[in-house]
């Protein structure tokens, strides 16, 4: 509908050619309040001839309105919010786009106030370089340190220290040199690849776009020259292939494609790939785009991959190199930056969101808080707003990830409050914990279905819960005999017996009881996976842990059986003489006496043992199982 493309004039054609091949630098300005960040960027844009005529006119009017007389306030080019212009501060990050003859730039002008650290982190997460401003008169302030540390934590490897307001200290080189020395010493352990110090005056433009006559002692480049030439080369195509699945594309029965953006590495038609979470292997059949099929794709490209085999993969999973696979784990260590006014609490459940995955997660341990001025590790019970800490995190289901230092895209996450849905924290993964390291989930050829088919039974976990002496083990034993006689394949896990072996290291405190149940539930899960009908006879007094056990098993596989005997009756029976000891105070943490028992709310079976024989109750359970199997 538009006119046919005509030929550009030679001048514009060459300009567009150059434009297309220019490299891109993404940078941020940061540092303390009033160090002149917005003014510096405004000045850079203005002196670089990048502010258009009507914007200059607006700037003049606005400067006058803010009481600056006929002096142009360059920060007003950036501070776009009403509250910002009124208060003369930057609240949120502003993005500006400009290009010079040599390079394209995206600059994020970030706020200096500690209160708005979250907005600084927003800008820093995608930047290649940080300009840290320091006021010549005040030197390094806590925010200078905080922003420097955050920049390093977020993986920025190049820093410019802009020693600003050099005019206000009489352009003295001694002040510049002292600040530079101090700063370089401060960042020694932060792993920056380049650190360049430049004396500037944002207000008067010294060393901003060209070298200043007021600082003859400074031999380095102006800020703009430096930004145009600094090499921030990052190679993401040499890293292993990672493809977080965003969306499964199924327009009709004959097409199934996985849509996403290549996070790192490259992929070609025919290449083998693995599904991160299951370990299933397949190969790339085709790479589909709107512009036709392509032979290969590399980091940064959004494509749709079609696989040779049908595999189980959906959003939240990853297609990866089969030889260099990501970690798949439900426990990990990460550096966390906290943004919310409500502190981070270990043990509380949050939503952990990676680029495409989302799981419930808790901080199991806050290892330490980082002091941003000294980098000292400090003990802490919680993280308050704008604090940074190192945490052990446990997720409800395994997630696929890399270490942030190896891969920023697959190594990051945000933390979301479950109630308000606010983004309350950001995380950079250090490594997986314990069992997860280097243990990949293997996809087995003989699976649960095959094993239970061979046994001609539906696997189940029959979870007997009730007070000590309620008759759990007696009923379970009777049931086990009946099932065995009917040719069923079973196993009985008994609380006392397991405590002689697997759980011999555990006592009866709440923490140990939770671990006791966790281990037994995991064992029961493995046995059910082997195709067995598992009978678990454990007091298991807490609802949370029984729920945890239930959530571990497949849908419908967990059968909770409440063996309901009043405590007076249990104490009367007292087959092991335990109630007598407990009443005498000889046993601590005895369920029903000195430790609580939380009755099941919705058990699959509720058995009252008063006036019933154990064998009758066992037959009642068998009946339930038979009906279930026939369904």
């Amino acid at each position, binding site marked *: 509908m538009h006119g046919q493309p005509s030929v550009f004039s030679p001048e514009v054609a060459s300009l567009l050619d150059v434009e297309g091949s220019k490299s891109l630098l993404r940078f941020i300005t940061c540092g303390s309040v009033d160090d002149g960040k917005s003014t510096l960027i405004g000045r850079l844009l203005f002196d670089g001839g990048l502010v258009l005529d009507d914007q200059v006119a607006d700037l003049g009017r606005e400067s006058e309105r803010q009481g600056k007389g006929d002096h142009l306030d360059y920060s007003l080019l950036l501070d776009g919010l009403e509250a910002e212009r009124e208060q003369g501060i930057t609240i*949120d990050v502003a993005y500006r786009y400009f290009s010079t003859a040599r390079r394209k730039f995206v600059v994020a002008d970030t706020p200096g106030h500690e209160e708005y650290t979250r907005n600084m982190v927003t800008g820093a997460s995608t930047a290649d370089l940080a300009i840290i401003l320091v006021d010549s008169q005040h030197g390094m302030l806590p925010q200078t340190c905080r922003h420097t540390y955050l920049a390093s934590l977020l993986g920025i490897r190049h820093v410019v220290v802009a020693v600003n307001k050099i005019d206000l200290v009489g352009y003295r080189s001694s002040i510049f040199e002292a600040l530079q020395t101090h700063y370089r010493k401060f960042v020694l352990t932060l792993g920056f690849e380049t650190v360049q110090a430049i004396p500037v005056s944002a207000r008067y433009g010294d060393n901003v776009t060209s070298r200043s006559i007021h600082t003859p002692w400074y031999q380095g480049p102006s800020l703009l020259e430096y930004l145009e030439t600094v090499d921030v080369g990052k190679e993401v195509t040499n890293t292993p292939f990672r493809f977080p699945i965003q969306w499964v594309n199924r327009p009709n029965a004959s097409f199934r494609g996985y849509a996403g953006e290549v996070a790192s590495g490259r992929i070609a038609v025919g290449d083998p790939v693995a599904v991160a979470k299951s370990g299933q292997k397949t190969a790339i059949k085709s790479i589909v785009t709107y512009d036709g099929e392509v032979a290969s794709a590399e980091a940064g490209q959004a494509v749709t991959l079609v696989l040779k085999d049908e595999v189980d993969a959906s959003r939240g999973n990853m297609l990866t190199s089969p030889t260099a696979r990501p970690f798949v784990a439900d426990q990990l260590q990460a550096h966390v930056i906290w943004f919310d006014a409500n502190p981070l609490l270990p043990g509380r459940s949050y939503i952990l969101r990676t680029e495409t995955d989302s799981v419930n997660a808790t901080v199991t341990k806050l290892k330490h808080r980082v002091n941003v001025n000294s980098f000292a590790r400090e003990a802490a019970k919680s993280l308050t707003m704008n604090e940074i800490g190192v945490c052990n995190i446990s997720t409800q289901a395994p997630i696929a990830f890399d270490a942030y230092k190896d891969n920023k895209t697959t190594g990051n996450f945000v933390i979301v409050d479950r109630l308000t849905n606010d983004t309350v924290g950001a995380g950079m993964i250090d490594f997986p914990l314990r069992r997860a390291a280097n243990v990949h989930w293997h996809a087995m050829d003989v699976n649960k279905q095959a094993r239970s088919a061979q046994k001609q039974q539906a696997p189940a976990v029959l979870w007997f819960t009730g007070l000590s002496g309620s008759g759990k083990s007696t009923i379970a034993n009777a049931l086990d005999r009946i099932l065995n006689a009917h040719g069923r394949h079973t196993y009985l896990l008994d609380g006392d017996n397991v405590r002689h072996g697997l759980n011999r290291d555990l006592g009866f405190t709440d923490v140990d009881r939770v671990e006791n149940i966790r281990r037994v539930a995991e064992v029961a899960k493995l046995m059910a996976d082997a195709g067995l009908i598992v009978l678990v006879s454990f007091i298991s007094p807490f609802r949370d842990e029984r729920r945890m056990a239930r959530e571990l098993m497949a849908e419908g596989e967990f059968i909770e059986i409440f063996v309901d005997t009043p405590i007076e009756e249990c104490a009367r029976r007292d087959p092991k003489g335990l109630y007598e000891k407990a009443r005498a105070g000889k046993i601590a943490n005895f369920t029903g006496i000195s430790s609580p028992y939380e009755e099941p709310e919705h058990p699959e079976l509720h058995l009252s043992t008063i006036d019933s024989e154990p064998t009758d109750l066992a037959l009642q359970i068998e009946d339930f199982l038979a009906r279930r199997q026939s369904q």
Partner: protein
Amino acid sequence: MALSHLARLEAEAIHTMREVAATSTNPVLLYSVGKDSSVLLHLAMKAFYPAKPPFPLLHVDTTWKFREMIAFRDQVARDNDLRLIVHINEDGVAQGINPFEHGSNVHTHLMKTVALRQALEKHRFDVAIAGARRDEEKSRAKERIFSLRTAGQAWDPKRQRPEMWKTFNTRLTPGETMRVFPLSNWTEMDVWQYVLQEGIPVVPLYFAEERPVVERDGMLIMVDDDRMPLQPDEVVRRQHVRFRTLGCYPLTGAILSSATTVPEIIEEMVFSRSSERRNRLVDRDEASGMERKKREGYF
């Protein structure tokens, strides 16, 4: 081999739209017929290929759009076989709201901002994708790609969620909605270069030709139909003009130009010394005009 600048921007926009498709329950694409909407729609076709975009298009019609825009809109929906929802604030029509008697502020508020809120509420859309760019205006430069709206569809600039990497928090509490801007990081120049590269159709009003205009408040206003009242001293003249942005015809200034093709538009921009929204009366009303409108629910 490094990806070109446009290829990077394209991938980012596609990624953003797929996030919407994967996480929202009832998304919509706000189609305002301009060049940014043309690019946005093209990217949506790419993002979900071979499937169709999994959302309808919504056009908020103020009843004062250029006639060529409406024709173009209907043609595009037909050509791409997409569902197009057109919403008009019927209360505003009944009250006879128009930009001449009520001024641009009242007109825009009722026929655009309120109309948009009505449409989103009527269809219960939870996410609206739109083509706004950060380089258009200073308050837009501050907005997130996934931008939360409170239960009243308002933008609270002090309560923006942090937005790190490309890890978007797409979760909504009941009543909240999301505006999503896949073209956030594009500039006007990027848009035109992409239009050229991809051969994307745009409304002919972007190309210069002789059109009937009058000079009013320092702007060249096109007389698009006979609803426009003329002042005694105003003379309709035929001039060679085109538009850099498109909105309601009485509020959108034309520029004198001879650019009749996309490359000529790009050439003109290379030498231009003024910004794109300069010819929008809506933005000039006051310094924080755009921010105020956005807080009320305007795009």
